[in-house]
């Protein structure tokens, strides 16, 4: 009787994961397999030939362009990560510890989601009238006499791209942090205070260590979002910021699927290594 039940349970578990499994197979594993297959095809500049080769990978690893692309990408990731972490942590801390009413907390949390009610492209384009040469910010700065010439770096620049990353991706850092912070047992903080810890010590020795899983999850989100973006670079960066995704996008635009696929696979491996590294350092599952 007991064995029937457990096999039934096992069957039911398999049944439950089937939809997700099929979805992942069709829309994740399948396409990645196609990209891997494509990346080993010979390319003659116009046509993908039915001939297997590792030449695309050799090119990826021998071009100085690859290194330049990754350095530029790493720079964008690093800056975005630091800023979103500081902002995300502060906002989550404020929501969890400084506010008392649950309703206020949830209301303010919902406010952070409002920008996501519009499409991603609209969120980006909306910056243009603010940041342009004739934009609101420059008009104000010229109007109050801070500058005579409009600041050009505000738009079609790395700055504009980073600004949009911070605006949009801070939520992805803040939400997991909010989640882990909300579960911190207040007694721990009380106990630390009773033992004479200063506020700074409590933050650094109690709260931050307990937030590590949230930081890890937020980091995975932010890193993969920044690395894969090229829309913000097109719209706010004037297509002038040379990240690895921008290079791939240009290759795809010129129908160079095999070299672009090789680039994509290398990037995928790099991302998996980063995620794997984070998982090793922080036990994310503990907090899920």
């Amino acid at each position, binding site marked *: 009787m007991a064995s029937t039940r457990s096999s039934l349970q096992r069957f039911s578990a398999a049944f439950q994961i089937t939809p997700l499994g099929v979805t992942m197979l069709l829309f994740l594993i399948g396409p990645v397999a196609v990209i891997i297959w494509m990346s080993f095809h010979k390319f003659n500049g*116009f*046509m993908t030939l039915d001939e297997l080769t590792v030449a695309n990978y050799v090119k990826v690893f021998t071009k100085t362009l690859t290194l330049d692309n990754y350095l530029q990408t790493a720079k964008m990731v690093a800056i975005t990560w630091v800023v979103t972490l500081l902002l995300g942590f502060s906002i989550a801390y404020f929501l969890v510890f400084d506010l008392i009413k649950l309703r206020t907390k949830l209301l303010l949390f919902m406010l952070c989601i409002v920008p996501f009610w519009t499409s991603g492209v609209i969120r980006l384009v909306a910056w243009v009238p603010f940041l*342009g040469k004739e934009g609101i910010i420059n008009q104000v700065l010229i109007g109050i006499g801070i500058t005579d010439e409009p600041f*050009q770096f505000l738009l079609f620049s790395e700055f504009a791209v980073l600004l949009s990353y911070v605006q949009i991706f801070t939520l992805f850092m803040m939400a997991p942090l909010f989640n882990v912070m909300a579960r911190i047992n207040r007694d721990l903080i009380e106990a630390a205070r009773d033992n004479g810890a200063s506020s700074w010590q409590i933050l650094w020795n109690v709260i931050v260590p307990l937030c590590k899983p949230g930081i890890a999850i937020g980091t995975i989100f932010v890193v993969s979002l920044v690395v894969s973006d090229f829309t913000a670079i097109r719209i706010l960066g*004037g*297509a002038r910021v040379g990240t690895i995704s921008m*290079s791939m996008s240009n290759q795809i635009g010129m*129908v160079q699927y095999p070299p672009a696929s090789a680039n994509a696979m290398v990037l995928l491996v790099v991302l998996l290594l980063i995620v794997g590294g984070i998982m090793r350092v922080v036990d994310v599952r503990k907090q899920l």
Partner: protein
Amino acid sequence: MKDGTKAKDSKGLSRRAVLKGTAAAAGVAAAAGVGGFPTVWAQDIKDITVRTIGMAVSNMVPLQDMANEALDFQVKQTAAQIPDIQARGLTQPKSADLFEPPYMLMKFMWPSGNFQAWDTTKLPQWGAVVDLYKTSGKIWPDAWFGHGQNPSMVSTTSDHLATDFVDPGSTKWVTNHPVLHNADTLGIRPDLIGRPIESWSELVNPEFAGKSALVSFPAIGLMDGAMALEAAGQVPPYVNKGNMTREEIDQTVGLLIELKKNNHFRALWSTFNESVQLMVSGEVVIQSMWSPAITAVRAQGVPCIYQDLKEGYRSWTLGHLLPRHVEGKKLGAVYDYVTWYHSGPAGAFFARQGYYVVTPDNTKKYLPEAEWDFWFEGKPATVPIMDPFGNLMEREGTVRDGGSYKNRMGRVAVWNSVMDENEYLTDKWNEFITA
């Protein structure tokens, strides 16, 4: 819409003919009313839908409505961006019945074997198509041949299902039935520049540092850069700037990187709308542009000129590629659609958008003389000039930017092309982006 009424009559006739069971004969008779081309399948052709996919500049509701009004079957147009058109043509050729890629993609698309050639003997309007595609590669004997991939190089193939390119006129098989062409040049903001602009060299003039832009499509952006650098005397004349050698690419990109480091280029635009926005906002005063983008800028009340430059134009063609899966009645419908396209009404429609359908003699039949003189002859407007959507574009007395058809399409310095060093060029372009 004289033509539309006629078409409706013929539709009614063919439906009655089905009832009578004398379909074939009536179909031919009905078709004779439309434009003289044979519509032998008219009895059940109305259930057929011809699905086209092309760029937004030529796949739009007003044109689709015109086609549906004039033809016995349905036409469904889908607008997409260039990479999507080529990707679908290469990987899902059955997803459309007619692909409308630019000629510059022919070296990618034609050898794929996904497409069949057009039999020009079954295209009644083929005779009206300009010589550019049929024989000499020149619209007029005194026209420039131009650098890069002149359309005549890829317009003809050896057989119905061949994948090669042969000399134009040597067979009856055409690869990519030309639809539209136009000549591109730089767009400028005359009010913000305040002096005459006569040469491509102005694109790289330090005077416009931080106020110029390039299109972000690697091959085209590089050619615009090359036109400017060559005109400015910063590079020796190119042997063929539409098909550069590695050394020429290196040299050109090197100079573009220097310009970029001096913040010469305010932005690189990827979509039509971005180029409009750059110009309207005044972020940019001189840049690569497409003709309808100029119209869109002016429509917002901002002065903008498609500047005629002494070095000539960078030109392009859109064509119709016919996938191999199209056969039987649908094939007949597609031939009818293309024939209608070249019979005149569409030509008049696109003329008002600033484009030229490749059968100008037929366009002339459907365009009032005053408009013909403005759009094709480069004469000052004698009537208010309207765009295809009925909005006022130009008042009396104005002259079209770049003047006559002959001045523009007769002075093509370079054709939009994908170069032999395509992969190398894209890498170099990415270096330019990254620098």
